[in-house]
């Protein structure tokens, strides 16, 4: 079990209101990702759920039980920190067993649970090492192991992958997704990387300045962003925005076109421009293009696309793939 409900949760640090009021329901077993730019209050919201911060007003309940005033240990949640927060002087085994020891569990039971977690996370051969002797990914797994053994009603992750290098990040992303598939425990995952959000979430919560901008499945957000902010935030490379006359032509204050939704031509098209850098990835080519109307946009072409720095190019948005936003930023 692990359904979590936030009712009009507010948080202010002194004078500064960081979370002006959030209502949110997380169903049991869901993988929910909080995403948003840096400083938007993701960590704060997570810490409020964890009980590491007190709410200024509002209520939090877990499995229907009000835990607004309960301490972090009583809420039955487990958290994986960005810095892993491993205990550096304890072996991996001791690290993982620590919450069990604190719960005064029998040695035998501890041992059983630790080895079970180690098996799941492929940590068997490292159990007697200290965290300092592990690689970043292994440390991350230990942190998760420490969370798993408690069999919490939900896992909280605060940017758990941001300290890893790109390749490892991809692997760990998949591992965590697989873990969720096998454990089926509620997970709340904070990131500001929209790729992580898209690939991992059942449900994405987009935050901005402490407010929820949109809640929905990744594809919902990708295909029907509620406003310009969400549209620009979700999808990689980012959506290109064009304003002014050219947008008005399509009946909007701003139009958004995703990089892969351009038709590229070396002869003619709606938006003429000059190729800046062309990034050839083998599988795709990303073109950085300076449009003649002054906008700087990115277009993605499948496979090899034979243009070079300085070439002229013409772009036309694909039919039906234009996102339209009003002056207030909301989707039309």
């Amino acid at each position, binding site marked *: 079990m692990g359904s979590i409900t936030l009712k009009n949760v507010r948080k202010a640090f002194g004078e500064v209101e960081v979370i002006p009021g959030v209502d949110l329901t997380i169903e049991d077993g869901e993988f929910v990702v909080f995403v948003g730019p840096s400083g938007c209050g993701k960590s704060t919201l997570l810490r409020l759920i*964890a009980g*590491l911060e007190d709410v200024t007003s509002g209520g939090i309940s877990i499995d229907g039980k009000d835990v607004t005033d309960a*301490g*972090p*240990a009583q809420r039955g*949640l*487990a*958290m994986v*920190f*960005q*810095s892993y*927060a*491993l*205990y*550096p*002087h*304890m072996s991996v085994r001791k690290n993982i067993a*620590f*919450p069990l020891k*604190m*719960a005064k569990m029998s040695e035998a039971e501890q041992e059983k649970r630790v080895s079970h977690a180690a098996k799941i996370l492929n940590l068997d051969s490292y159990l007697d090492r200290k965290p300092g002797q592990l690689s970043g990914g292994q440390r991350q797994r230990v942190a998760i192991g*420490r969370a798993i053994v*408690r069999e919490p009603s939900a896992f909280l992750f605060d940017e758990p992958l941001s300290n890893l290098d790109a390749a490892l990040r991809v692997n760990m992303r998949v591992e965590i997704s697989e873990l969720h598939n096998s454990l089926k425990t509620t997970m709340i995952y904070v990131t500001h990387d929209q790729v992580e959000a898209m690939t991992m979430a059942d449900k994405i919560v987009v935050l901005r300045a402490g407010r929820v901008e949109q809640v929905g499945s990744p594809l919902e957000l990708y295909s029907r962003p509620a406003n310009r902010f969400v549209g620009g935030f979700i999808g990689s490379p980012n959506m290109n925005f064009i304003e002014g006359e050219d947008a008005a032509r399509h009946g909007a204050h701003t139009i958004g076109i995703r990089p892969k939704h351009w038709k590229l031509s070396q002869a003619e098209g709606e938006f003429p421009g000059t190729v800046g850098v062309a990034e050839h990835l083998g599988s795709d080519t990303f073109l950085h293009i300076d449009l003649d109307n002054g906008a700087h946009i990115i277009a993605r072409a499948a496979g090899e696309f034979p243009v070079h720095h300085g070439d002229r190019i013409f772009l036309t948005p694909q039919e039906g793939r234009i996102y339209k936003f009003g002056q207030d930023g909301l989707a039309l």
Partner: protein
Amino acid sequence: MATRQTQSLARLMRAPAIILLLIWMIVPLAMTLYYSFLNYNLLNPASTSWAGWFNYQYFYTDPAFFEAIWNTLILVLGVLCITVVGGILIALLIDKPIFGQGIVRILVISPFFVMPPVAALIWKNMIMHPSYGVLADVAKFFGLQPVDWFAQFPLFSIIVIVAWQWLPFATLILLTSLQSLDGEQMEAAEMDGASALSRFFYLTLPHMARAITVVILIQTIFLLGVYAEILVTTNGGPGNASTNLTYLIYRAARLNFDIGGAAAGGIIAVILANFVAIFLMRAVGKNLD
């Protein structure tokens, strides 16, 4: 970082410090070693003669010798215990949110600025004096017989004075270490259900291990050389109850003007200090990198 050129430059730049210290160590040490084999009394330079091992044997058979070593040990360990435990407690306290933290810190570090003879004078005359000391006044206030600290608990009194001087040092190192403790670790432990006490023993204390090591290492170096506090307060007495090795040598050199004997004592002290040093570096040095 490591071309041949930089390596040879490095050798050149290390040289002055090393050479200076070598001279500073070897010249007096060699002279001391030489003197330690002489019958040489400063008050009677005419009758200086070769003594062989006599000075060593004499120093070694001095009934005060083992007492002095024992006292040295107690002094060092006593001060270390008080400063480390006290330092941890005070560091924990002043790390908490308090009003006037800056001033509190100033007050706490102040004893470190007091030169040892002055510290000893203040404690001897104004705090621990059996008739005029503040402690005597306190005792009288409670209707108790004032304690004559330096007569009844000589070594303990000296430990208190020395510990007072070194407490700021320990406190500050431990405080710095405490402040570098990762907040997320603490929160993780809190989420793991650890109580405040468990957090202290399982996290804070191990985290401070390195700082405690530094305190022990540096203080030991200085504590082995304590003598001014003894000289001013008890003169090593009553009996030899507060004579440490350094003071014993001091007595030979400065009261008896027995250069040969003091030199032998000095050599013995150097050897013992190096034992301690090697032991410390082994036990503690690992923690230091």
